[in-house]
């Protein structure tokens, strides 16, 4: 089943999402990238209804990019998150709402602080020290309650993330398999191999 995690640390955010594209009981693809780069310091992991996810993520990606072209500066993470949340909340009361859950991880280059937002398809948004979506969240959140440290270095953060992935692999009936992991910090965004 689809699973995504994100954790904050000292000056960085790690976002991880599984790479399977499944339809019913069949795995159609095992190298799908479900984390979009919205701006030089903003990542968005998306999951939910197939079709809605890509359509919505691309809509957000293009509009965040348009803002940056028009104003020469990208939206800061709190502003971007508010706008994305509003898009989902307005969609919720429309004829065909988007069923997309998000984790938004960004580094604010003006205040030098990392921000992580947990957003669901209803438009519920909250800033969290760590967050997760999908069936994996039931295992990962309680594990992170015990092991998460907001002052941890990147190396320690990656170890904690590995614990999450291992726990889900151990206890969840349908294990997602591979994950894509991206980090955002003061230097921007990069993908890392576990």
């Amino acid at each position, binding site marked *: 089943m689809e699973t995504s995690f994100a954790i904050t640390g000292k000056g960085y955010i790690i976002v991880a999402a599984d790479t399977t594209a499944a339809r019913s009981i069949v795995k159609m693809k095992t190298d799908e990238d479900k984390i979009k780069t919205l701006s030089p310091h903003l990542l968005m992991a998306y999951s939910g209804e197939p079709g809605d996810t890509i359509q919505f993520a691309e809509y957000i990606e293009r509009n965040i990019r348009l803002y940056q072209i028009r104003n020469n500066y990208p939206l800061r993470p709190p502003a971007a998150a508010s706008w994305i949340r509003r898009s989902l*909340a307005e969609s*919720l009361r429309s004829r065909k709402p988007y069923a997309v859950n998000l984790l938004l991880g960004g580094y604010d280059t003006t205040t030098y602080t990392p921000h992580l937002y*947990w957003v669901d398809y209803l438009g519920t948004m*909250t800033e969290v020290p760590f967050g997760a979506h999908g069936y994996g969240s039931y295992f990962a*959140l309680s594990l992170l309650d015990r092991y998460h440290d907001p002052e941890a270095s990147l190396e320690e953060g990656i170890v904690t993330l590995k614990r999450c992935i291992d726990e889900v692999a151990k206890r969840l009936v349908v294990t997602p398999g591979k994950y894509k992991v991206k980090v955002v910090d003061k230097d921007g965004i990069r993908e890392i191999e576990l």
Partner: protein
Amino acid sequence: MSIMEYNGGSVIAMVGKDCVAIASDLRLGNQALGVSSNFQKIFPVTDRIYLGLPGLATDVTTLRELFRYRVNMYTVKEERDIEPETFAHLVSSTLYERRFGPFFIEPVIAGMSKTPAGGLKPFIAATDLIGCLNFAKDFVVAGTASSKLFGVAEGLWEPDLEPEDLFETISQTMLNAVDRDAYSGWGVMVHVITKDKVISRTLKGRMD
């Protein structure tokens, strides 16, 4: 599964002697799964009005933004701050606009309103999700722990409490009520509004 209980959360407001208090829990959940322990449900409207918004979390944020917009427009047009009574009717009519497709929120308003003599008197009110106003003289409750809050508040509240005593009363009411509710808790935020200042405190609660 009721939509009003989807995210959980509770708010209470109480009247004291020349002061009012409003308190909420800090939990945000997805049904039984806790997601955040720092989800604010009470927002300042003016220097002496606070608004509590328990209910569906997406509507908490949406309505917070909508009321901020409408109060700002009022302030600019009238060139003065909105009064709590007026604000209560603004809340009511905003919710009734969506009579047949409502916001899933039960607002609680606490503030100090101006008297004709120039003084300030305490004011509390609450509405249901379609804006039916309830002006109470003692206390108002809303949210998933509302039935428990009624019970505890009925036992602890008394008239003319001083700010510090009112703080103790509302804090104990809130803490003990949310401990009996699975969907509320994870910390409490309390605001006591007096004539000249607002005292805001965060309380630690049980994390189970």
